[in-house]
């Protein structure tokens, strides 16, 4: 059976819709509705004149799906290619579910570590430091640093996925996201340290005494260590802020 390849307009439509992957995020199917919505223009083209098969295809994509949203583009692109083959009778429809389930966990883990664990802290720390100089400089730095990587991964990931499963896997290997995660973590550590040093230094200046400044620095290091240990114990920042608020009220009470 000959099936029309995805038109340029259809491809653009799928690309635009991938930004709404989490539009109907829910605890049962997570990104399922978003995924079905994103792939729908391609399904309409592949199954034109075959409404029953189109329905079956949509139902396939309404099954549970969850991954890091930017990394989801790789799976989306590859799923479009697979659907094209299924519509042409060259592949088993079950292969799509197997492929999605097989990849979403590992891509989620890679994406979470890269985007949430490394890139976002780097961009946020850079933004917070530059905001000390000028608020707009901070905002521009935060948005530019994050989105330069984020949009590139979305674009290249989708293009690689559109080359099929092999293209997706080859891109994932070539992208070297694990190495980049380490680099971003180094940058985040430097920027986070600079942020802590800048703020602690600002308060130490007010004392006007070298020994007091050294004491304040040591206290700063101890506090960072203490807060980090509390985070590791599962204490949330809200709880720490709550305790500090109580301490503040006690200071006022006294």
């Amino acid at each position: 059976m000959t099936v029309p390849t995805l038109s340029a307009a259809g491809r653009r439509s799928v690309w635009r819709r991938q930004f709404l992957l989490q539009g109907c995020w829910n605890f049962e199917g997570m990104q399922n509705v978003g995924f079905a919505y994103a792939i729908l223009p391609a399904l309409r083209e592949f199954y034109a004149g075959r409404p029953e098969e189109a329905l079956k295809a949509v139902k396939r994509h309404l099954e549970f799906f969850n991954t890091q949203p930017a990394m989801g583009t790789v799976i989306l692109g590859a799923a479009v290619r697979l659907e094209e083959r299924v519509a042409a009778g060259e592949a088993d429809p079950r292969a799509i579910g197997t492929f999605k389930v097989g990849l979403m966990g590992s891509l989620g883990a890679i994406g979470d570590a890269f985007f949430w664990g490394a890139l976002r802290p780097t961009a946020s720390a850079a933004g917070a430091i530059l905001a000390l100089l000028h608020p707009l400089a901070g905002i521009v730095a935060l948005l530019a640093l994050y989105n330069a990587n984020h949009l590139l991964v979305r674009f290249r990931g989708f293009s690689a996925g559109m080359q099929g499963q092999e293209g997706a896997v080859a891109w994932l290997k070539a992208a070297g996201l694990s190495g980049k995660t380490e680099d971003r973590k180094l940058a985040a550590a430097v920027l986070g340290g600079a942020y802590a040093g800048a703020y602690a230094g600002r308060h130490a200046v007010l004392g006007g005494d070298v020994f007091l400044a050294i004491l304040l620095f040591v206290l700063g290091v101890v506090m960072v260590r203490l807060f980090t240990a509390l985070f590791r114990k599962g204490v949330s920042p809200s709880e720490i802020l709550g305790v500090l608020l109580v301490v503040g009220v006690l200071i006022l009470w006294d």
Partner: protein
Amino acid sequence: MAFRFALAALLGSLCYLDRTAAFQLMLHRPLVVATLMGAVFGNFAAGAQVGAVLELLYIARLPVGASVPPDDTGAAIFAGAAAAVASSSIGLDGGSFTALLLFTFPFAELGRIADRHVRKVNGRVAHLTAEAVDRGDLRAVEHGLLAGLTLFALSGALLALAFSGVGVAVAKLLLPRFGPGSRLEFSALLPALPLLGAASVYSCSRTERTSALFFLTMGAVFAATVFFRWAA
């Protein structure tokens, strides 16, 4: 003032959409949101000042799997609006600045609860979508997604309206009740807050290699800040 609240609700709604449902371009980050709210309520620099500290406070809580992190967007809406109003009435001194940052945590938790509720309602939307597709209605997928987006946007607008309203009330009614002496005493807690943010970054980026680097940089920047300030 009504126009300012309407604008806050509109911008808040867009920022909340960016948080989960659409794009994830980081327009929902506290630095951006608090600056925007500061601009809406008359002093964008005051908003940015609290946003720069709030930006890192919750960054260690990751939106992984089914976990919903504290709502730092809501915290920034409250703090940005309050900082802008407080800076024009009593001036944003260290004590008020500290108090506003400490007051943010109930909003971060309330926002998280609201977010969980929206996601639960979305579960019902997804269920109805699947039923409609079973009946042969393909467009139900588009309607389902639109319903989900609308829920996220509406909830964001309502939260932004409520949080900015409380922020303005706190800045106008609560903070002026404390005298300059009390606010000065409260500011003793201020150095702890950026360090809490730095600890969040440290715990995100912590590996064997980065640990030493973090504290070396902290020491170098601390020494440079103290030296240049004293020299100046």
